[in-house]
């Protein structure tokens, strides 16, 4: 058992080393540049090697139940130093942030985009009550708790939110690290994109802001400060936005969108 944990540690070091040695890779598609950071390679390698058909011999020992449980139980603690780092990014810029404080609050309302854009698409491709769970938010713990309390997780709504949770957990960081710089190419200001990065998931925010930093390194301190300040705000008022704005808007739009369904 202790031996398996040592395998686990060596494996983690090996993936970090591999990811860092691959480094930052820029892929150009037309006029767009997608930069892949070591963090993307790290999660990709760790997930690919975990595919069930590869899990033999040493990999089976590395991905033992104990080790995987350890990783998921303590992931949040592994993340804490990153959150502490954000304090040092926000502090020197606190004045500027407070000056445009209202912009931070306004852009929180943008989190309704999950409903505004996600819900019509979901209805269009034939989802019904699952769509409630799948579009209320980005499917993190907050939405999971809300949906399970209101509908239970066995309901269609529950299935929707769990599916989104799984997809977000697996691909959320990769998605945001690719998507954020694409918007940069569409002409968005990097400050606005940094602010928008506080979507409510620590790892997704880090992925989005980290690729922005890779693209505009001279703005590193501003990007990290804005992203983490917005993330902090989301963790404070995100629940309120969900309960008092997203959920009622969703109910209203849902009734309107499925009204043609009856009989």
């Amino acid at each position: 058992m202790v031996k398996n944990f040592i395998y686990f540690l060596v494996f983690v070091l090996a993936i970090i080393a591999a990811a860092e040695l691959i480094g930052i890779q820029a892929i150009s598609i037309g006029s767009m540049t997608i930069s892949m950071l070591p963090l993307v390679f790290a999660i990709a390698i760790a997930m690919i090697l975990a595919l069930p058909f590869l899990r033999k011999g040493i990999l089976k020992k590395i991905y033992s139940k104990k080790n995987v449980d350890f990783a998921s139980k303590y992931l949040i603690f592994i993340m804490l130093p990153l959150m502490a780092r954000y304090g040092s990014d926000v502090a020197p810029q606190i004045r500027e942030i407070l000056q445009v404080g209202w912009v931070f609050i306004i852009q929180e309302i943008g989190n309704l985009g999950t409903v505004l854009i996600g819900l019509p698409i979901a209805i269009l491709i034939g989802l019904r009550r699952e769509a409630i769970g799948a579009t209320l938010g980005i499917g993190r713990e907050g939405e999971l708790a809300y949906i399970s309390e209101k509908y239970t997780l066995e309901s269609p709504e529950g299935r929707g939110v769990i599916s989104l949770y799984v997809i977000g957990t697996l691909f959320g960081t990769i998605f945001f690290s690719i998507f954020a710089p694409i918007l940069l190419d569409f002409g968005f200001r990097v400050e606005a994109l940094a602010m928008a990065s506080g979507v409510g998931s620590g790892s997704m925010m880090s992925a989005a802001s980290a690729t922005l930093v890779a693209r505009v390194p001279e703005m590193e301190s501003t990007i990290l400060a804005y992203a983490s300040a917005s993330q902090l705000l989301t963790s404070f008022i995100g629940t309120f936005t969900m309960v008092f704005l997203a959920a009622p808007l969703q109910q209203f739009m849902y009734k309107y969108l499925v009204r043609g369904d009856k009989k």
Partner: protein
Amino acid sequence: MSPTMRRYVRYALVLLLSVALILFAQEIKLIKNPDSTPITSMTFVGLGILWLFSFIGVIIADLMKLVPIKVIRDFPILGWVSITSLTMCLVSDFFVEAIQAVDFLAITTPILTVAGISVANRLVDLRKTSWKVAIVAVFVFAGTYVCSALLAQLGLFLAGN
């Protein structure tokens, strides 16, 4: 050792593992790119401070569980750590300087490695999720990001900044 004590020791060790992995990532990063953030004595101080603030945040989160206000009880540990660190960094620039000696991207790589391993057994759950939700997920993630960015862009424009 009491169970609470033992729990804290475990947290302390996991946090130690976390900062050790960051140091390792920064070291490898330097091999790949000698121009990246150098490892100096300040880096070690910075890592120690990150460890300390994280640990303080954990304790605060635990204490706040006793507060009768739901929002405060439910506030994530991640948030408490940010607030602890922000407060301390506002108090003294020394903390800022030390923490900034730790490479930002080197902090993210170990986290995503552990995140990748932690989802290993959920890969099979993917089969249970419908492809429809996968399509919706793209629009949900893109939707929240684009809408927030649009509002932020507009806001910054109106703020004349």
